[in-house]
């Protein structure tokens, strides 16, 4: 009961970067996760904030860890605002 709410609340972290990426993950992928992926996601959530962020942002993976499809999803999540996409809109005259 209330698994989604529980998972969403536990995406509240000390780092804003993680708040945004994890919430986005919940919105996009959570409902489609299988048993094993759910366990992987929970294991990742148990990591300290800075370690988890380094694994997501700098692709620092721990040696001997199993391949983690969930981590790869987190690494590829685009967390920018959809309405601001076209890169050239920010283009400068350089």
């Amino acid at each position: 009961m209330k698994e989604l709410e529980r998972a969403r609340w536990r995406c509240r972290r000390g780092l804003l970067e993680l708040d945004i990426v994890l919430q986005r993950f919940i919105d996009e992928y959570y409902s489609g996760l299988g048993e094993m992926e759910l366990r992987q996601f929970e294991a990742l959530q148990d990591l300290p904030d800075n370690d988890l962020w380094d694994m997501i942002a700098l692709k620092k993976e721990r040696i001997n860890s199993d391949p983690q499809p969930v981590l790869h999803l987190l690494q590829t999540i685009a967390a920018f605002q959809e309405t601001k996409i076209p890169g050239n809109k920010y283009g400068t005259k350089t």
Partner: protein
Amino acid sequence: MTIIKRKFDVVIVGAGGAGMRAALQLSEAGLKVAVLSKVFPTRSHTVAAQGGIAAALGNVTEDNWHWHMYDTVKGSDYLGDQDAIEFMCRQASEVVYELEHYGMPFDRLENGKIYQRPFGGQSQNFGGAQATRSCAAADRTGHAMLHTLYQRNVRAYTQFFVEWMGLDLIRAEDGDVCGVTALDIETGEVMALLARATLFATGGAARIFNASTNAFINTGDGLGMAARSGIPLEDMEFWQFHPTGVHGVGVLISEAVRGEGGYLLNKDGERFMERYAPHAKDLASRDVVSRALTMEIKEGRGCGRDADHLLLKLDHLGADVIRARLPGIREIAMKFANADPIHAPIPVVPTAHYMMGGIPTNFWGQVVAPYKTGPEEVVQGFYAAGECACVSVHGGNRLGTNSLLDILVFGRAAAVKIIEDLKKNPHHKPLPGDAADKALARLARLDSQKDGENVAQVTATMRKTMQAHCGVFRFPDMLRQGVEKMGEVAKRARQTEIKDKSRVFNTARIEALELDNLIEVAMATMVSAEARTESRGAHARDDFPQRDDDKWLKHTLYFSEDRRLDYKPVRLKPLTVESFPPKARTY
């Protein structure tokens, strides 16, 4: 409705650095301590602090606490209380060594002493050469501190209530504080936690702004609870903005980018900082750069469809430099701005970062308010420490690395004071009959509200209103309209409706309750800012560009009940040394 009651010696709300430092002292003294936290303790926002802890250890260059005190007074733009600042700077070395003995993995010099690095605003000899005062554990000092304190608390048998949210203060008829009501998020159960001492350490509240570097948990719950129970909020007009948060999301782009040679551009491709700060240019101090960005946007030179941000360019540094020296920044830009800085600039805006104001306390962490006869009467049984408190050591503007010091010094000081006070008060005060009424009424209102407002929409309106009307640079008309608009937003917040009425893990209810707290903080900020007709520290007004010590060398006190303001003098007299009289603040 009867609710469950439990008794503790001390209840602490918040498990960041301040709450856990206090809890450790109290548990080790043999007291029965409960610590409430909305999230697991090591996920508190303290983990985001990278810079380090200021302490005049003198391990690298000569230093002493008196120089540190001068820097802090000057940085505060003379609004800091000099007794509290002396107290903090004198205790800095001791709290750092204590933390070292707890097992904190500080970086080391070759001789084995704690490594220290220079940081902005730190000087030798009262404004002379750069000092080297910041003690750090790589770029994750806050993280290391939080984990160290958590482990020690587990050893000391501190009792943590994880995923609990404080709802309201419990005050006796005579005004003394005798605990809090709190909600167990897991079960939806409300409990009265009765305590001989109640300590708030709930952190910051920059989520009131649209652009904020703060984590989602930073909703000012302690300030909301204090304000609702008649405690004033102090100096709420003072918020530090960081000039380069990623547009739309707030994630911080560190000063390191500009240090490496990155610079800011407006929509015409102009390097506009040359106009505002001809010498320092893009490396001018945070408040100067933030104000320049705001001026560019206001004058129509912002970028993008809504002309609402500026660009941080670093592609000229070359792919190799960016990959080698700024890998984390590059990832943040790609993830949060969809821009690879090797090829494209990063869209940025000034972003709310730190709250200098808060619950008024003295330097023993006791909450003080003009609620009986004097302007700074101790509210018996009530203490606050860390970002939620206003001691005030940061005054109008906080110096980097003074926030981690603040939470250690005043977390410990509050605990020391509580231990002393509890010897005099061996018994719990009788619980007032209406102890939980306020909290239960708010919950009942949420349960029965029909045709109400959507929480997310009201929150978004509040954040946009604060950003537009009370941001980095403040204009008289915008502030006046802002007070009115926030009044309307506050009315809407009293009519929020949630669809989920269940008890177990009802996060919609939590978010509605958080909004109540955010509204208190936002309203206090807007009203206080509108009234202060000068520019000082982080409060910059277009119509009053100068500091005005004749009229405004005083602290603001905002009372929620009737949105009334009061003022109290700045404590200019230190404990043992000569006062630093106000003078022009130049760097």
